[in-house]
């Protein structure tokens, strides 16, 4: 079965006046129809940029410098802007982090819904409004027929994120990219929104790319998880495997630092040091300066993602390292 989304060797660069920054490098992954892929990593690991690149909204001067993005096998990263626009919203929906700022404060939510629906379909004004009402109902807005004429600031944060979800799903996309959809919300609301996201996407048959730094959310929601570090994927695999038996030393550190997941050890592990800045990504494996198990090839040679058990991992611990490295 063709994956909904295939990302192949994606590279995104930001030229700055102090040289070109490579924000993500050689990132590859697939999302199968109906699948929820969690993308996890620290701030600055390149998670959001990956999502933004897929939907074609990298802000200039940033640019996709290499690789491909395929939607149902069709390449979309090199489409003319107008065609890419038609894919956005229609085939790929997106949800941003902060529901408080995602909606235009000057327009009623009904207007914003109808506008989105009519951009992607030939529905009449009244049919689009009817659809907007049913979407609001579906995302759990109480009394949608009165709330549809309210302004965003009249909703609470959680309610607004429901409206945002309705907007993202308005044109029945095949893929929803959710970029930290719960980070800005109260803890009590987070679980509801995540559950809603998962249920809606399952009902509408949409695959999800769920970007978050919260391993807990991933553990509950995702089918597979990609762990990103310094603009690269360190490890990708079924969520159960990655959590139970992480392969990459970075993933191990990440899991060890989460209280709820680290129940079998006595103390939380902390990864020494901090993630490198984009201006100073180490050579070889970017994690090697912090890695407790770094050895000969790590500072020099960059590990590729390669299959290991049911996952894929980019680490020399699991692959035969190059002969030239052995000679050092």
């Amino acid at each position: 079965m063709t994956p909904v989304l295939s990302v192949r060797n994606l590279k995104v660069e930001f030229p700055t006046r102090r040289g070109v920054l490579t924000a993500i490098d050689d990132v590859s992954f697939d999302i199968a129809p109906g699948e929820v892929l969690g993308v996890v990593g620290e701030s600055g690991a390149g998670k959001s940029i990956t999502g933004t690149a897929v939907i074609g909204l990298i802000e200039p001067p940033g640019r996709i410098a290499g690789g491909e993005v395929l939607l149902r096998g069709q390449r979309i990263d090199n489409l003319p802007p107008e065609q890419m626009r038609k894919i956005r919203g229609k085939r790929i929906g997106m949800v941003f982090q902060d529901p408080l700022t995602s909606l235009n404060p000057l327009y009623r939510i009904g207007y914003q819904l109808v506008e989105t629906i009519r951009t992607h379909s030939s529905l009449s004004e009244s049919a689009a409004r009817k659809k907007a009402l049913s979407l609001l109902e579906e995302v759990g807005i109480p009394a949608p027929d009165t709330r549809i004429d309210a302004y965003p600031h009249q909703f609470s944060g959680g309610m607004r994120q429901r409206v945002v979800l309705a907007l993202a799903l308005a044109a029945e996309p095949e893929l929803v990219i959710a970029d930290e959809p719960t980070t800005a919300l109260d803890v009590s609301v987070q679980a509801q929104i995540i559950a809603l996201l998962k249920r809606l996407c399952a009902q509408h048959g949409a695959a999800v790319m769920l970007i978050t730094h919260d391993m807990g959310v991933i553990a509950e929601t995702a089918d597979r998880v990609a762990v990103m570090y310094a603009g690269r994927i360190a490890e990708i695999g079924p969520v159960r495997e990655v959590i139970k038996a992480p392969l990459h030393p970075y993933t191990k550190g990440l899991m060890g630092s989460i209280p709820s997941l680290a129940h079998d050890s006595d103390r939380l592990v902390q990864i020494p040091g901090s993630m490198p800045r984009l201006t100073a990504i180490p050579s070889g494996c970017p994690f090697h300066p912090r890695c407790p198990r770094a050895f000969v090839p790590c500072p020099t040679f960059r590990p590729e993602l390669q299959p290991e058990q049911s996952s894929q991992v980019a680490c020399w611990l699991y692959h035969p390292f190059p002969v030239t490295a052995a000679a050092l």
Partner: protein
Amino acid sequence: MADTTALLVTRITTRERIRAVLGSDLVYSFLRSRVTIAAAMVTAIIVIAALLAPLIAPHDPYDLRQLSLLDSHNPPAWLSGGDMRFLLGTDDQGRDVFSTILYGSRQSIAIGVMATLFAGMLGISLGLIAGYTGGTVDAVIMRAADIQSTFPAILIAMLIDGTSRALFGEQRNEQIVFWVMVLSIGLSFWVQYARTVRGSTLVEKNKDYVLAARLIGIAPVKILFRHVLPNVVGPVLVIATINLALAIITEATLSFLGLGLPSTQPSLGTLIQIGQKYLFAGEWWIAIFPGITLAALVLAVNLLGDWLRDALNPKLR
């Protein structure tokens, strides 16, 4: 559900901090922008020429013995009828336009700088007092600022100038006029400083170190100057640069309207006013050359202000 980021805290070392200052955006953006360098050079040339006017001006426009009506209305040297002694021509009294521009710039810059300094000191003091004292004092000062800022500066300056005429009568001598200009322009530009400084003072006032300083008995004035003031140097500098340009424009406008410096001691604005009368007679040089000087000076100062603002406020970049 733990936030894994929180456990991977970033620490900035002292060395990194030093490097950040050395590679600072201020120096960097200055050297990178050719426009800014050009603006700095234009400003420097005009200011130095104005300061050295008595040394480099070919004629002394204030020395009546040097003037001859026979030399009046001469076109620039390169036009027919031009005189090599008067590079940019002469005005109606036979004064060398180039020399009057040098002396005129001196007046314009002097009033502009003094007025900006005065407005700055007044605004900073009032801002500090308002922010630190709070209560009624704060309310009165900031209300006054609100009301004043609804009026254009030029109107306030004109009003003060008119008042001085009523007070001093016709005997307003040049010395008085100079200070009246400084006062009237200065008084119309203090609001922005006051608002900025008051804002930072309010922020700093509630920080623990100020409280601690107060508890160990350091005088409030000392606290304000030692701790609050350094935090507002950047914004104040930006406001001052842009205000300097505005002050020069305001002075020129007042003088042009006949409310500023007299023709015996002209500023650039006065020179343009004198020259305006002869524009229709085709004697354009009397007004246009001082006009170009004024525009170049103000533009250069504005460009420097723009650069300062962008360099000190990374958010806007």
